[in-house]
């Protein structure tokens, strides 16, 4: 198991873990930037200060309890549906590619693509906000025509690693995909 520290597109630190189970089975796991205590406390404080301001104006204590509930529910929703803790990519040479994204609450979202559907794994570039970024994606084979691409499945969507990290993953993936072709 190797571990390397890279940077995400946004500049946050991300960790890439590589596990080699066997010659044709590898797992890459990218740990997304952690939830900052600063931003969490800023969000909570702003909600509570706003609620307190309303309370002073309206003299209704319902506002305060509503603010507490909003914060709690918002935090739960954020951890369960929005915040992704780590994303992993499991490449099994003869079976397929499995993408897992684990949310901060422990919920896992898994997609498995069979090897017969995978055409290739490539690095593509795109414009995101005001900058050009690179992303790794899986090209799916179009069942109708042999050279067609039916769909592009982007990988590491939430962590968005920089090019140096993507190249590492790309090389390892290509090594395994190469075995498939021969």
């Amino acid at each position, binding site marked *: 198991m190797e571990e390397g520290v890279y940077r995400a597109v946004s500049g946050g630190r991300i960790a890439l873990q590589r596990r080699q189970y066997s010659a044709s089975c590898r797992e890459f796991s990218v740990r997304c930037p952690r939830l900052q205590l600063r931003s969490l406390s800023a969000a909570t404080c702003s909600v509570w200060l706003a609620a307190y301001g309303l309370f002073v104006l309206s003299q209704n204590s319902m506002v305060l309890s509503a603010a507490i509930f909003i914060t709690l529910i918002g935090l739960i929703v954020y951890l369960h549906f929005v915040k992704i803790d780590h994303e992993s990519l499991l490449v099994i040479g003869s*079976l397929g590619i499995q993408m897992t994204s684990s949310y901060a609450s422990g919920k896992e979202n*898994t997609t498995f693509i069979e090897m*017969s559907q995978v055409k290739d794994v490539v690095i*593509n570039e795109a414009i995101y906000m005001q900058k050009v970024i690179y992303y790794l994606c899986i090209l799916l084979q179009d069942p109708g025509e042999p050279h067609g691409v039916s769909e*592009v499945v982007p990988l590491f969507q939430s962590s968005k690693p920089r090019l140096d990290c993507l190249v590492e993953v790309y090389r390892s993936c290509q090594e395994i995909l*190469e075995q498939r072709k021969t």
Partner: protein
Amino acid sequence: MNEAVYTASHWQSWKYCPGLMSFQVLRSSRIAVMVLKVFFPSCCATAESGLLIGRWIPEQNSAVVLAVVHFPFIPGQVKQYLSEVQRVTQVNMCVLGSWSNSKQEKEEVLVKFLEDLSTIFSHEPWIQLNKERDSRVWSCCIFQKYPSSPKEDEFILVYYDQRKVMLSQLHPTDNLTTSADHKGNDASKLGAVFDTVAKSKVLFMTDRYDDGPIKLTHWQSEGVEASIIMELMKQASVPVCMLLTFLLSLVSSVYKSRVLKLWPLSFIWSKLSTCEQLGHRLEHLQIISSNRKAQNQTQLMRKANIFVSLLIDMALGILLMSWLYRENRIGQLADTLIPVADHIAKELQDLLQWLMGVPAGLKMNRALDQVLGRFFLYHIHLWISYIHLMSPFIEMILWYVGLSACLGLTVALSILSDIIALLTFHIYCFYVYGARLYCLKIYGLSSLWRLFRGKKWNVLRQRVDSCSYDLDQLFIGTLLFTILLFLLPTTALYYLVFTLLRLLVVVVQGLIHLLVDLIDSLPLYSVILRLCRSYRLAAGVKFRVLEQKAGKPLRLLMQINPLSYGSVVQTYRLPTYACYPKDSWSSLCKKLFVGELIYPWKHKGEKQD
């Protein structure tokens, strides 16, 4: 940078742009590795030593183990049994290899014996699985009589839960049925595995108390539970279905009879949402009670969904009925209904009085205003007398209508929608009068505007042609145009007010229809199945890598990835009869502006999609 700009719009759609970027990697030349996959049921991990039987899928180089045959056995019997199973299940079953679960020593004897077995059951390749004592990691080896090429074999052991895989339904299902003809090469690999396990259901049917000539280990039910009630229900369902079919055929023959197809009746039927809902439910009952077997999984699920939806609907309806008929609630309802209708009429009268004065400070054409106002007031007067004529019978009508709730909540809701439509008939009338007047004015103004510009509408060619008018024609046209233009605000105001009232009623009716549609189309059975037995509806599989040891085969655990709730609802949604208006918001606004009528029966609601 040019290229980057070119891809700018593609970030959201994740389009693949070939040739933009290519990372060349030095391809390492390796020896071709033959990877052999063994799908092993996790329930057989504790089985005693014996033979592995299952299916060999040569094109994928994988073996699906279905069961373990224990020692001692007679090879002839095993072969006979396998051919029998093969005949029933249509799965190409064979002996794949041997399985040894060594608890004690006797190592060498066993190894020798297992090698000998491969000569009796000829299978290429012969798989040998060994589970050592107190060890989780197994060793595998392959024997091939004729090693075709020098290669390093790699093993992948995939554990699967036999029961879940057998019961699960891989989605999308239509994919499998349409590509059935070229299934051999095109169907997904895992689809083949799922298919094999599901087909060999017969093999698993024997429970642990059955004693056959050979002993097998595979997933077993805990014995079929024999409940008298279940048996009785099964026995009773056939005559019940037959009776239901008979009754339904009677009802549908009445429904289709020619008397009801006469002009005024058929017109009324098509406008009442109750009739449409009843017809829809009749269709559902016919589907359920038909004695034809569901051909595939989709149809089976459809039937089950309709059944559950009907049951829920009936239960809610009966609940509503029990609430209505207790403590004389019908009487109370009838008592409140008449004052409410009166109150609405009174409010409308006040509104008309306000319109006849100086509404919102607007100065209207007094004469026209008075004429229109009196006309509508007289209409309301008629309406009130009609309601008062009805008032003694309302309670009785409600009592009988309430009985229809036992047919289901949806029917009751449809009746409610119809009652609302009937009780607000005056609003509808006002709207039609207002709209007609307004429409006439708009058309008149537009054609006179053409006259001003020296043009006219050519009906034959469907276009605007130029035309030379006489002086008196122009004079009359101008006069009419002025009159129409100055009278327009008055009619427009009446039209606006009554259109708003009409829209309010239509929105209420639309909400009721939305609720009816929700009950009609929600696939509750599938949702409950997804909630309680999430493996039954599989979107795919997921793998988990188990503990590794160097030099030992890779072990994976195959789990079933359940379908998300959104796609469950999307896949199994029941079709509804309601045809939603195709026109968008903009065309609706245009219609309102021009003064074309918005028909309530086409517009089931103001929701557009």
